[in-house]
Each structure stands twice: as structure tokens, then as C-alpha cells.
């Protein structure tokens, strides 16, 4: 069978000021018709640059191929004229992107953006353009295609926008679809639906698909073949079944090993007579968003409705939910970053919501947070040492003592002593999270809240930081409230799990119970939506 794409010895250079010389080096592989090839890699692997290069799209004139060929049906994309490239884009090869909100022009209707493809490539079909658009919109299972046609991107949900993008890409039935992390920005249930849709359409139109992702679960769900990339090199490529069950390259093994298993970790023995550290009763929060150019329209959002639960000393509770579930609001209310409207929060027996002024300030040290975004959780102008000692010094600790403790903490989180004199931008994402953990621990909090603390990290780094949290938790007997959207991650570290949706608690129980016999339909839905779950369970891939 003839390959649709044949990539030979491809090397793409980065500009002189980049952090390395090449985006990708000596890439060789083929793409055959009617197959789904997943390209997996972490950030910086070069997978996105490669994906775009397949269409001759380069982010700037400084990023260009210095060596090799990209043969599309025998013709080299890299030496095609601009006009020739235009004829194949959207026509023979189409692409969908990660963020559907920014990938669509906010000022044009969905219909106009879809019909545009026909106008440019098949002007003779213009009369039927509307019909074809409606047809493809219903093929992607969008309700009321006519309404969607006349709608603007901001009026659709994330999942709907992605479906619209897929419609736009497939309307001219291209031979190849390049999908650059199309489900990464979506909720897990929406992701499951989109993956199903892609599989369905692939079956129907026999399109070859290049699917870029960092999530091995997604890979297990849809891949026919898998290519693994590391720092610009293609380290392994094989049929899905083979690669997942017997990976060859050490990097592939490392990546697979880092994927959080959906089998919960062994449950720990917890002392039953522990003190109750956190006691939340009937917590409620309503957000009134006023919008519109006149700010006269008020929309009420129930972020939290009557949330009640307890956390014992040394326990780790996972709060799991999709976007809009209220889990972040819960964390913020407990930390008093946001004021709850109703309900009570007792920390170590004290009514936290009643504390004011000086006593509030003193009490705050008992509740500390580890934040999500490593690139905004540290003051870019502050040295690491200062970041970690700031809290203790603020609370009256002796400066010398604080500095000593800071060095201890750096060691505990696995960073060099010299880090204290450096600035945040000198560290990687994973290292910054470690610094954030050290900062939180400096105040010796009784309750540590990790608000999606590993969600923004690459999977291998994620595994390391998660491991670090577990070690620290075990050694210092910390009480941990672990917020996440990823059930797999929760399974690794939490003793019990609380599933939230639309501001309410759907289910609460021991991790093992939740995973093995979920009661609530929503929990079952969440578990079922975990990508690659069936594959993982079937092949008993125990990754820890």
C-alpha cells in the first residue's frame, strides 16, 4: 500500500534565539491512508511543529526545514509554491487545533467560516454550499444545524465549537486530517464524545488521521499506530497494541510508566481517633455575573450548594469534577480567597469564617495552597529564597531560623541549595511547582490544599511531583485536600474521593469503593469517560 505521507530525514531549525537548535531532527516515518497515527510527546518534543510542517505551515520565516523531505503523494511539501500549498490546505489535508475558542474568528458566523472553504477551493459548488454545510454540521451531531450555521463562536460551548471545527475541516472530505491536541482543552466527558466522533467519521470517510497528544489514555483509545517523540527526535514507532504492551525505547517506557493508573493505589491505614482538621457545613456560594455592554444583564451561577464534609488529620481527600463543578470555588472559599455566602468552615475547631483582622492573619498560616499554574504562582521578580522565607518572617519568625528552614525545605523538595539565589524564570514547570510546595510547607500548615497542582505539568513531571507530594504527606502526616479534574490522578494519592458537579456533591466515598463500585450515574459517567480505560483494564496494564 502506498503511503499518503512519507517523511524523510526531516530536520526543522529554530531561530538563533531559541532554546535549542532544532525543533525536530532526522524524522522518518510514513502515514498510510485510512489509519490513525498518534504522535505522542511531552511539551518541547516538537510534535506541534511537525504537525504544522505537514501542511507547510511554519510559525515564522525563521523556523524552516534545513534538511529532508515531506512527501505528500510523492510531491515534496517543503518545495511547493505558495499557490500549490494553498490548494492542498483545507482540501487534501485539513487541520484542527487545540483551543476552539481562539481558533475560530470571533467576528464571523460559524456558517460563514465553513462555507469559506468551499468558496476558496470549489467555487463551482457555491450554490450548494449552504446545504453541504448543514449536512456536515449534522454529521458531527450538532443539534439544530441551521441555528449553529448562523451562530457566532462565543455562543457555542467548547465541545460544540470543536465539533464545528471538525465540520469545517472535513467538509471537502480531505484525505488527511491533522489534529493538534484537539481534546486537551475539553472536559473528560466532552473529550470522550469528541474521540468517539472522530473514530466514527474516520470509519465513514476513511480519512488518514495524524493525532497529536500528550495523553496515553487518548492514544490507547483511538490509535492504530503510535509514534513517540522526545526533544525533537522520533524515538519509537509501532502498532498500538505492540507499543502499549511491550515498549522498546527507555523513554517510551518512562512515559508509559508515568501515566497514572486507573487502578487506585493501595489504601493506607489511617488512625480512627484522629482530630477533625476541616469541617465544612452547608457551604454555599452564588456568583452574579453582570455582562453585556450595558452591564445590565445578570446571570446567577450557583457555584456551591450546601456542601458539607469532614477531613480528619492525616487524611487525603480528593475533590474531583469537571469545569463548572465548583471544586476550585470550594478551595478558594476554604482558603478564604473568596467569601462564601452561606455556611460554616471549622478549621481545627475554630470558626474560620468569623476570624477577622489580626487573628485572621495569624490563623491563615494553618491553611496553605499549592497552585495550578507554575508560571504565574511565583513572583517573577522575587528570588526563590525570599519566596520561601517570606511567609515565616511575616509571621514573626527569626530571619536566620527562617533561612535555615528554607534550605531544609529546598532539600526536601529535591532542589539544590543554590536555587535560593535564582529567579523563577530559571526553573522548569516541575521545579516551580516544587518551589510552590516548599513555600506552602514553610508555614507548617495543618491543612494543605493542592488546587490542580499537577494538572499543568507534563505527564512524567506530573508523576514526579505527585510522588513528592505523597512522600511529604506521609512523612509530615499532612492533611491534604486534593483538587483535580483527573480521576486517575486522584486514584494515586487520595484516601477518599468526593465527586462534584454543578456545585453539588454527587458521591463521596473511599477511593477503592468509588472506582470499583460507583453508585451515582455521574460518577459512572466520569469513570466511563476516562480515555483508554477499556484498553487499560483489558490488558491489565499496571503502571505503578
Amino acid at each position, binding site marked *: 500500500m502506498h503511503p499518503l505521507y512519507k517523511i524523510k530525514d526531516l530536520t526543522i531549525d529554530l531561530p538563533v534565539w531559541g532554546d535549542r537548535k532544532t525543533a525536530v531532527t532526522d524524522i522518518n516515518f510514513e502515514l498510510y491512508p485510512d489509519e490513525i497515527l498518534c504522535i505522542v510527546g511531552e511539551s518541547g518534543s516538537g510534535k506541534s511543529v511537525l504537525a504544522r510542517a505537514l*501542511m507547510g*505551515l511554519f510559525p515564522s520565516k525563521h523556523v524552516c526545514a534545513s534538511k529532508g523531505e515531506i512527501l505528500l503523494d510523492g510531491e515534496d511539501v517543503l518545495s511547493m509554491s505558495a499557490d500549490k*500549498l*494553498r*490548494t*492542498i*490546505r*483545507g*482540501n487534501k489535508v*485539513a*487541520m484542527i*487545533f487545540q*483551543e476552539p475558542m*481562539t*481558533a*475560530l*474568528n*470571533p*467576528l*464571523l458566523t460559524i456558517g460563514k467560516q465553513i462555507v*469559506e*472553504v468551499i468558496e*476558496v*477551493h470549489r467555487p463551482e459548488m457555491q450554490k450548494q454550499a449552504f446545504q453541504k454545510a448543514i449536512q456536515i454540521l449534522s454529521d458531527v451531531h450538532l443539534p439544530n444545524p441551521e441555528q449553529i450555521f448562523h451562530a*457566532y463562536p*462565543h455562543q457555542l460551548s467548547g465541545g460544540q465549537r470543536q465539533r464545528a*471545527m471538525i465540520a*469545517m475541516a472535513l467538509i471537502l472530505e480531505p484525505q488527511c486530517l491533522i489534529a493538534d491536541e484537539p481534546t486537551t482543552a475539553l472536559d473528560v466527558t466532552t473529550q470522550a464524545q469528541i474521540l468517539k466522533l472522530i473514530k466514527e467519521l474516520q470509519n465513514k470517510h476513511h480519512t488518514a488521521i495524524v493525532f497529536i497528544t500528550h495523553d496515553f489514555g487518548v492514544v490507547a483509545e483511538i490509535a492504530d499506530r503510535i509514534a513517540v517523540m522526545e526533544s525533537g527526535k522520533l524515538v519509537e514507532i509501532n502498532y498500538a497494541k505492540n507499543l502499549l504492551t511491550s515498549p522498546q525505547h527507555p523513554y517510551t517506557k518512562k512515559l508509559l510508566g508515568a501515566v497514572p493508573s486507573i487502578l487506585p493505589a493501595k489504601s493506607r491505614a489511617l488512625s480512627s481517633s484522629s482530630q477533625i482538621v476541616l469541617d465544612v457545613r452547608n457551604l454555599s456560594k452564588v456568583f452574579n455575573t453582570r*455582562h*453585556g*455592554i*450595558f452591564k*445590565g*444583564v445578570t446571570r446567577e451561577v450557583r457555584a456551591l450548594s450546601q456542601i458539607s464534609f469532614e477531613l480528619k488529620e492525616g487524611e487525603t481527600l480528593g475533590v474531583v469534577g469537571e469545569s463548572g463543578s465548583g471544586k476550585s470555588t470550594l478551595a478558594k472559599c476554604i482558603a478564604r480567597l473568596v467569601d462564601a455566602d452561606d455556611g460554616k468552615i471549622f478549621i481545627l475547631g475554630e470558626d474560620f469564617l468569623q476570624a477577622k483582622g489580626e487573628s485572621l492573619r495569624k490563623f491563615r498560616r494553618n491553611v496553605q495552597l499549592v497552585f495550578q499554574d507554575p508560571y504565574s504562582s511565583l513572583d517573577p521578580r522575587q528570588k526563590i529564597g525570599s519566596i520561601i522565607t517570606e511567609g515565616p518572617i511575616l509571621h514573626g519568625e527569626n530571619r536566620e531560623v527562617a533561612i535555615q528552614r528554607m534550605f531544609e525545605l529546598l532539600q526536601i523538595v529535591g532542589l539544590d541549595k543554590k536555587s535560593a539565589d535564582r529567579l523563577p524564570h530559571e526553573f522548569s514547570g516541575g521545579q516551580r511547582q516544587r518551589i510552590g510546595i516548599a513555600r506552602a510547607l514553610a508555614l507548617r500548615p495543618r491543612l494543605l490544599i493542592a488546587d490542580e497542582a499537577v494538572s499543568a505539568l507534563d505527564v512524567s513531571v506530573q508523576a514526579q511531583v505527585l510522588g513528592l507530594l505523597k512522600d511529604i504527606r506521609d512523612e509530615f502526616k499532612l492533611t491534604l485536600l486534593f483538587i483535580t479534574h483527573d480521576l486517575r490522578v486522584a486514584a494515586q494519592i487520595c484516601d477518599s474521593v468526593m465527586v462534584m458537579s454543578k456545585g453539588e456533591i454527587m458521591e463521596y466515598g473511599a477511593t477503592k469503593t468509588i472506582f470499583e463500585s460507583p453508585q451515582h450515574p455521574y460518577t459512572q459517567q466520569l469513570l466511563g469517560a476516562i480515555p483508554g480505560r477499556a484498553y487499560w483494564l483489558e490488558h491489565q496494564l499496571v503502571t505503578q
Partner: protein
Amino acid sequence: MVVSRLQYIRRRLLLAVPIIFFIIALNFLLIQIAPGDAADVLAGEAGSATPEYMDQLRRKFGLDQPIYVQLLTYVSNVATFDLGFSFRHNKPVSELILSRLGPTLLLMVPVLLISVSMGILLGAIAARYLNRWQDKTISTVVVLTYATPVFWAGLMLIVLFSVKLGWFPTSGMEKIAAFHTGLARIIDIAHHMVLPVITLTLFYIALYTRLMRASVIEQNTMDYVTTARSKGLGEKRVLWGHILRNACLPVLTMAGIQAGALLGGAVVVETVFSWPGLGLLAYESLFARDLNLLLGIFFISACLVVLVNLAVDLLYASLDPRIELK
């Protein structure tokens, strides 16, 4: 929730009420700060009013009343467009201002339209040919024009085109002695308009060109532009069909904000060219120390700005569907 255009206009005009009120109160404050008795100020030029009129004024504005009553009286007067009387021109101030409003608008409207449209065009061209000669030329001219004081530009244009070359008249709106009517009059006025309009437009073209250029460059990095290219759209279509509309929005916003500045520019340009509009009237009232007239002009200008802002907002809302207004 969608709001009809009429409802929106009504709501916005209501929103404007506190602004107008504040401006009137500001005027009142300024009157109090000014040297002399408030009646002196309100009568206009010192000494030119008859004693009877001064007494009338004092009673009307209740100058023996507590200050907040004075404020209320003043507000109700101004709000009903009773802005006083000008002895010098022998007309009520509001009538005087109205008669001079036309010539000013005759300058302002072309300036606004030309500067915005030329700014968008030049900015798009500069961005399209980034760092090439088109961009470098446009950017250099922009840098120079942006730094040129408006009045100096006007004076230099007069020196070159009126005095040395004799192509355009040096001042005024029309050749009054010629008694033109109909089309001949329109042409005459247009002839007189050229230099003042160019003078004021120069600065604003520079401003909008810079803004548009930066805006287009920024839009070029947006994801939807990559999507457009991935669909096989040519550069021209990407620019005109996608980027332009998005890039215009900040320029439009700026044009609304600059409405007030435009009226200030009118003062200078009309003074340089002796153009009989509100700006020249303001200058004359300065000379004649007629604070009351000046305050009246200030008030009307502010009202104009509010209206212009409303128009710009409506235009913006019709271009950007994310703003909820149907």
C-alpha cells in the same frame, strides 16, 4: 438577554445624565473659583453689562441663597440651555454657540472620517509589508507627524501653500466680499477648508496608523489566523476577510476616546485659520475675558462628546457580535 437598539440608546442617554450633571457642577465650581462675584462672571465681560441686568442676574441665580440652592438653580438653567447672554455679540449664548457649531462640524466630520479611514488603510499597508520600504516610509512619516504641534503645522502650511505658493487662502471660511451662492459658494468654502482640514487630520492619521499597524501585527499572531491559513486562504483573503475586521476595533475605540481631543484641536486650528467656528469663538471669549461664554462652549462640547461616544459604541456593538445587543 438581548436589548433592542432603541432601548440601548435610551439607557445610554440615561447613563449620560450623571456625566452631564457632573460637568455642569464642574462649571459651577469653576465659577466659584474665578475671581470676582459670580454675577460678574455670569454677566460675561466685566463692566459691559448694565446695572439692571446685573441685578436681574443676582436675583435669578439667587446669589444670596445658600450654595446648594445656587447649584440647583444653575443646573436647571444650563440643562434647559439657558446659558446666559453675550453683550459683545448681542445674542443669547446658546444661540451664538448654535450659529458657530456648523462651521466647526464642517471641519470635524471630514477630519474624523478621513483620519480614521486613512489611518486604517495606511496601518494595514504598513503591517502587511512589515519592515519593508512601505512600512519604513509610513512609519517614519508617522513618527514625524505625530510629534508636530497642530498649530505649528497649520502655520507652516500657510507659509508654504498660501504665502509662498498662493494655492489656498490664508484664512476664513469663504470670500465674504464675493457673495457667492449655491454651487459656487460650496466650492469656495471647500477651497477654504482644505488647509485647516489637512492640518488637523495629520496628527490623527498618524495616531490611527500607529494603532492599526500594531493591531494588525497582533492579530497576525492569533490562532484564528493560523486556522484561516490552514484552510488554504491566500494572504490577501486572510488580511481582508479575517484580520482587518478584528484589527479595526481598537482603532474605533480610540476614535471615540479622541472625540474630546478633536474639539480641543478645533480651538487651535480655527484660531490659526480664523475659521468662524466654536474654537475661534472660544479664543475670542478668552481674549475678551468672557468666562460665561467659554463655560457655555465647554458645556456644549462635552455634550457633543457624549453623543459621539454613544455613536461609536453603537457602531462597535454592530461590528462585534460578542457585545450583547441585537
